[in-house]
């Protein structure tokens, strides 16, 4: 699978990057420059920025999102110069986790951080970042988890849909040392204070930055967004992330994190009413931010409470203006919480959009049904079909009839025995197995159970139409 391929080459290229960081002169490792210098990168250029790696597909510079599983699903990582939009889950429990993983990854890799929030002080957000799991601890944690939930299931052989046993599994990448790409974090521990102090960060806390509202000129952007945009532009310009300052020798990545964008705390009423006055404020802000990011060495994560946005058209526009969109759906309070299918998981994760950058195609993962769980300390993402198929009987219970589709033929109905037999046939190609659909409520017997015999030589043998004994000896 493509994921395995990126794993392998990822290890290879980080190894070469490690050696290159030490030499930093001439190496055989070359890649196309980031889009920041797209206009003058006629050929190749040598870049060595810690915590980044080139994409396997087109040499695009990637940074880790802080979750190696999510990196795999996004085709290797988040591209520099793009926006990762996280659609928050309903009670905002898991999206701050992804936000913090992104920032913690920035601290470990030595990137500069820019944290913007209207709700929490960025200094407090920094204190709550998770601690990284380094080599030995990580290995112990992973082994424990793998042992616990692998043993019972891997022994169960699929009887009917046996093809699913060969399906892709979300392999967890082994633990990595601090100088590599993508780390694991312990959500129960706080990041050590010395790491925070050694890092470079800028905070934007909206209540502090907003001056008295008297001086506000009417503008198309909400005041909060305007200030944030100016702040980001200043940081990018002053610290040389857009390449405009030739004195800056050390090239680094700016990781921008914006929390709860679009919520009423930012002064935007897109979540409050369906027809708002400043309905273009949010989309305009995203467009201008995109312009800023494309011309600088930065990556941005935005969490947005899209479930609160009343006007669904705005969500579509926001999705078009963002590059990578990931939606979180937690099971808390929903009917799925009691569904035995999802008993090990905390929610579903939807990869709604992956950008096609410098390319006609993108690295879309084949697996679409993904669930996440916050197990003890690690945030893992798994293909929910694994669990799905562990309970075959629950999925195809007897008493129901099943609509089957065979290759190139119409839908037909089958009895349960017929259906389970055919299932094994059809499941030989997993694409077809998904066409097995439960037809409806269990059928009550409506007729007498009598079977009329087809016309044959002895049908009118006795002067009466012959009848076969009933298949079901049940009287109506």
């Amino acid at each position, binding site marked *: 699978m493509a994921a395995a391929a990126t794993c392998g080459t990822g290890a290879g290229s980080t190894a070469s990057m490690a050696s290159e960081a030490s030499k930093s002169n001439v190496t055989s490792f070359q890649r196309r420059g980031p*889009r920041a210098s*797209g*206009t003058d*990168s*006629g050929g190749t250029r040598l870049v060595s920025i810690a915590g980044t790696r080139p994409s396997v597909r*087109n040499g695009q510079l990637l940074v880790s999102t802080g979750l190696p599983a999510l990196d795999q699903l996004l085709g290797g990582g988040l591209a520099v110069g793009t926006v990762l939009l996280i659609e928050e889950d309903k009670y905002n429990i898991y999206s701050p986790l992804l936000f913090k993983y992104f920032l913690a990854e920035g601290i470990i890799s030595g990137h500069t951080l820019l944290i913007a929030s209207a709700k929490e002080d960025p200094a407090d957000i920094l204190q709550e970042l998770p601690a990284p799991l380094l080599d030995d601890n990580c290995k112990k944690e992973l082994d424990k988890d793998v042992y616990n939930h692998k043993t019972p299931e891997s022994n169960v052989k699929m009887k009917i849909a046996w093809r699913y046993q060969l399906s892709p599994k979300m392999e967890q990448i082994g633990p990595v040392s601090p100088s590599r790409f993508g780390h694991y974090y312990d959500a129960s521990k706080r990041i050590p204070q010395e790491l925070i102090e050694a890092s470079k960060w800028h905070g934007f806390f909206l209540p502090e930055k907003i001056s008295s509202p008297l001086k506000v000129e*009417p*503008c*198309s952007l909400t005041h909060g967004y305007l200030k944030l*945009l*100016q702040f980001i*532009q200043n940081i990018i310009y002053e610290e040389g992330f857009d390449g405009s300052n030739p004195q800056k020798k050390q090239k680094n990545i700016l990781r921008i994190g914006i929390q709860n964008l679009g919520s009423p705390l930012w002064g935007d009423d897109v979540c409050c009413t369906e027809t708002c006055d400043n309905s*273009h404020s949010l*989309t*305009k802000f995203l*467009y*201008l931010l*995109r*312009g*800023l990011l*494309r*011309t600088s060495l930065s990556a941005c994560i935005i969490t947005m409470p899209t479930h609160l946005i009343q006007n*669904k*058209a705005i*969500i*579509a*526009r926001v999705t*078009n*203006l963002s590059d990578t969109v990931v939606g979180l759906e937690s099971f808390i309070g929903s009917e799925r919480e009691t569904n035995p299918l999802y008993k090990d998981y905390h929610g579903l994760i939807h990869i709604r959009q992956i950008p*096609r*950058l*410098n*390319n*006609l*195609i993108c690295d*879309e993962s*084949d697996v*679409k049904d993904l669930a996440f769980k916050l197990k003890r300390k690690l945030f893992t993402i798994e293909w929910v079909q694994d669990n799905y198929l562990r309970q075959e009987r629950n999925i195809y219970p007897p008493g129901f009839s099943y609509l089957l589709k065979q290759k190139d033929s119409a839908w037909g109905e089958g009895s349960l025995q017929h259906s389970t037999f055919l299932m094994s046939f059809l499941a030989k190609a997993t694409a077809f197995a998904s066409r097995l659909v439960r037809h409806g409520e269990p059928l009550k017997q409506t007729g007498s159970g009598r079977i009329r015999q087809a016309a044959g030589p002895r049908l009118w043998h006795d002067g009466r139409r012959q009848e076969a004994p009933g298949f079901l000896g049940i009287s109506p």
Partner: protein
Amino acid sequence: MFPELNNLLNITPDRAEQGKLTLLCDAKTDGSFLVHHFLSFYLKANCKVCFVALIQSFSHYNIVGQKLGVSLTLARERGQLVFLEGLKSSMDVFFQANEEPHPLQFLREANPGNLQPLFEFVREALKPVDNGEAVWKCPVLLVDDLSLLLSLGVGAVAVLDFVHYCRATVCWELKGNMVVLVHDSGDAKDEENDILLNGLSHQSHLILRTEGLATGFCRDVHGQLRILWRRPSQPTAQRDRSLTYQYKIQDKSVSFFAKGMSPAVL
């Protein structure tokens, strides 16, 4: 350009039609490969192209163009391509306090009235050079994409007016072509977008509509393309011709096949 798509549309770079408005529409999928196709097609056909690129950067189109066999930097230097990069100039335009005119000055305004500066820019870019020699064939205007203008605060009617002005100048006066991309919001009821899409559908000569498969994601078939030839000037005495194909996008090309005839299934 994609040779298979040229065959389907029955056009070649030597024999490009003139005075046509082509509408690219995508619903639940990404139709930007069509923009790359038409950009490289018209550059290879030796036409003068004005590209209003609002959604992606120049280097994105350049790198994909190189895979398709055209060099945008070279075309820009030669004067064949006039490229308006929205992303690069957006921040500068927005924060410029003075009243300097700029094609994208609607970004500054709270309620932009019309897109006249943008139209002036297009007209200036595509007007024939005065020395009389016809270096390039017909002028072409490419816009990627129009739905973004709605997100930036411009009204649907203003965008339709802009398209109308451009059509009068580029298609009728200068005998050139226009290609515009509009997103179809589908389930999300985006009324402004629907107004824009319906208005453009009635005006255009050729509609290329890419849709995602109704059954969801498929690794081997990325979507479905509907081609609709129209004659907006005549009353619909003859039926408009329509064809449907499914496609798969590869690294440097797109392969088209009839519905259900994907090589992976056969």
